[in-house]
């Protein structure tokens, strides 16, 4: 019985709105400031080559992070994306050495979808925390990747056909970037406009309430893991095609955490129920700009990681602050 506590109403509501605004614009403003500063301080920053280069390098991260946003919104977390990325890469490389590019690409993405499906089923059906499930899965999948490569670097320099997947230029922009743009748009639309997206917000916001409202929470969460796995698969195939080689250790746990950092810096809550794909895009690019800035301005790269950590803490701190209002 706390009638009045709940009725405390308007003041609290205004405070929340202010925080929401702060957080809503929060990532966009530092991003624009950083972009402007880099444009002014480095002549080579705001060039088409440099910017497209950043996008090309970030295409894999963007795709994985976009899908990872859905996992977080629905109340889960996927730490297996790094391993899945490598696994899909080596699977596609393995088959590219033997068959045509098309089946190799599809098999690579399919491998990612399968890992995602396994993640989804294990976390929902057996009610195991997704942090543990996907951590365990990343070991299993890494092992599988090593089985495929037998510890070798798979090279595809003699398979230029496979390289066309990510390296074809269309309207002077590489297909890796086009693929990333398309994936991000589709995933963002899925979250923002479809019933499935609505259910993801509900499942992450209050799983029991969602269930009682008739939402199939397990199915929705499984879908997010499948999408995350598929995205990691696509990203792995794209990078294999970009560099025409693959190895089992390519995207270890570091990738999973880079992706997570991008999502969280963007402002999606790790507690679920809130977030958006466009935020994640800005978050990932913000982190990429920091790295790019360190290189272009010739700063001591030792400080880059410290900067990253501080920014991550600031992002999470802001999230905690906005929740305290409730």
């Amino acid at each position, binding site marked *: 019985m706390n009638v009045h506590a709940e009725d405390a*109403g308007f003041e609290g*509501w205004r405070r929340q709105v202010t925080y929401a605004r702060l957080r809503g614009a929060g990532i966009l403003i530092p991003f624009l400031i950083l972009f402007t500063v880099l444009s002014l301080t480095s002549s080579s920053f705001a060039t088409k080559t440099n910017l497209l280069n950043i996008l090309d390098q970030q295409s894999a991260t963007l795709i994985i992070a976009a899908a990872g946003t859905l996992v977080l919104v629905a109340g889960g977390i996927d730490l297996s994306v790094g391993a899945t990325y490598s696994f899909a890469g080596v699977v596609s490389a393995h088959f590219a050495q033997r068959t045509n590019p098309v089946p190799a690409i599809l098999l690579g993405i399919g491998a990612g979808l399968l890992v995602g499906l396994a993640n989804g089923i294990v976390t929902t059906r057996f009610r195991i925390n997704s942090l543990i499930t996907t951590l365990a899965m990343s070991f299993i999948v890494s092992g599988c990747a090593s089985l495929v490569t037998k510890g070798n670097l798979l090279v595809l320099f003699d398979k230029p056909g496979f390289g066309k997947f990510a390296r074809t230029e269309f309207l002077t922009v590489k297909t890796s970037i086009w693929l990333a743009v398309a994936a991000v748009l589709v995933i963002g639309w899925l979250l923002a406009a479809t019933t499935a997206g609505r259910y993801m917000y509900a499942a992450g916001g209050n799983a029991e309430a969602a269930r009682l409202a008739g939402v199939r929470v397990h199915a929705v969460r499984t879908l997010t893991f499948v999408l995350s796995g598929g995205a990691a698969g696509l990203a792995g195939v794209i990078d294999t095609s970009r560099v025409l080689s693959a190895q089992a250790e390519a995207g270890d746990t570091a990738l999973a955490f880079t992706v997570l950092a991008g999502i969280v810096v963007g402002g999606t809550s790790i507690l679920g129920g809130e977030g958006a794909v466009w935020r994640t895009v800005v978050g990932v690019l913000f982190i990429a700009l920091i790295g790019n800035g360190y290189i272009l301005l010739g700063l001591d790269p030792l400080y880059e990681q410290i900067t990253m950590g501080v920014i991550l803490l600031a992002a999470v701190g802001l999230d905690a602050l906005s929740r305290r209002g409730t």
Partner: protein
Amino acid sequence: MARVAPLPATAEGRPYLELLGVAKHFGGVQALDDVSLAVVRGSVHALVGENGAGKSTLGRIVAGALAGDGGTVVLDGEPVAFRSPREALEHGVAAIAQEPFVVPQLTVAENVFLGREPRSGIVLRRRRLEREYARLTAAAGFELPARLSAGRLRTAEQQKVEILRALSRDARLIVMDEPTAALSGQETEQLHGIVRSLVAAGTTVILISHFLREVLELADTVTVLRDGRVVRTAPAAAETEASLVEAMLGRPLTSTFPAKQPVEADAPIVLSVRGLRAPGVEDASFDLRAGEVLGIAGLVGAGRTELARALYGAAPVEGGTVVLGAGVAAGRSPRESLDRGLAMIPESRKDHGLIFGRSSIENTTLSHLRALSSLGVVRRGTERKAARGVLQRCDVRGAQFAAPVRALSGGNQQKVLFARTLLRTPRVLIADEPTRGVDVGAKRAIYDILVGLAAEGLAVVVISSELEEVLGLSHRVLVMRRGRIVAELTGEAMTEGRVLAAAFA
């Protein structure tokens, strides 16, 4: 049977515990208001009252689990203000909760001496621990194997562990909050025996209980609380179940309810329950007709919510049948139930009802999104229009419909839940505590919605801890006690006294 209040053995008539003007409020709700009472040393002092009357709050203040806002607690002549249960324990005041606290992996003896194990340096003296345990059980007058792991004990035995723990710390005042609510008849008898022997040995017991018969049997003195105030304190010998019920209620039935529409005699049966067994529900059977409002009364924990959840498919059903209308089996999940025309408004809107971070519109349409989308894409315009319609019909006020639902007051949040249900009208609606934590104005609005729905031919089940509400809305009332339906009341028989008599028996 009530004994004559014993004279304090030592302290020349001075009460062992005295409360003077104790007050406590939660937010704006005054849970306790100017409560004064005196507890005689070596007696059982019972606290009774309706749900929310403030009994448990009072018990928790005495035991140091809560701090009061005002007033004084005097223990054995000394004013005290415990800041924690630990501090209370150091002064000889222990609490035994309805759900006992034990560490399941440790043995019974280890649990009893948890935190004050006999030891030398950092080495546990196991043999001395068991010796002390044996001495303790002998003094308490009951047996419990020392080496059994506590996780394997039943609730009643775990309570014994708590009692032993209290005794091991030399507790002279024990607060028992609904100690028998989770016990079987035989276990209840055992506990009563223990309480009697404790009191005979000079311990003072404050007993909080819903079970009036138990109170009259055990207590020397009874204090009746209502709305956070003391109605009266009297010797148990001077009370009867009827006099206690009257004191607990103490208010006339007010006509804050819309007029009931008569149920047509040939109205079809839309919900038929036979021998339903589920966690917390035993052998429930009843029928419900279209247009009928069925009230389910009972104490907190009597199985009302469990029954609702089982009917709705939110909890597993262990046996029996539930049939909706002509030959339609009930759903086994909330989704199926909704599709078959059975909806539920859950007990706690915060935990089980609303997605607080999302808008009123999204919360309203959540159960029916498929009807408002094409090929999996939400048709925003249609959605907004449909949601607005029902939200206005349910008179939701206070913030824009696009604002997060947490911005709304409790009453308006509850109305959003009704709006969700009404977006696609079900045939059966179960409303669990539909007006909990809702102000008076919103209450009447919710009553109007419920009665209006019944008039349109919906079958409505209303579960409520507020008796007035159940009686004011329902055509018929079922009373539940310990998981069973123990009474069915209609017409003239629907009185607060009859319901309470069945609920407390």
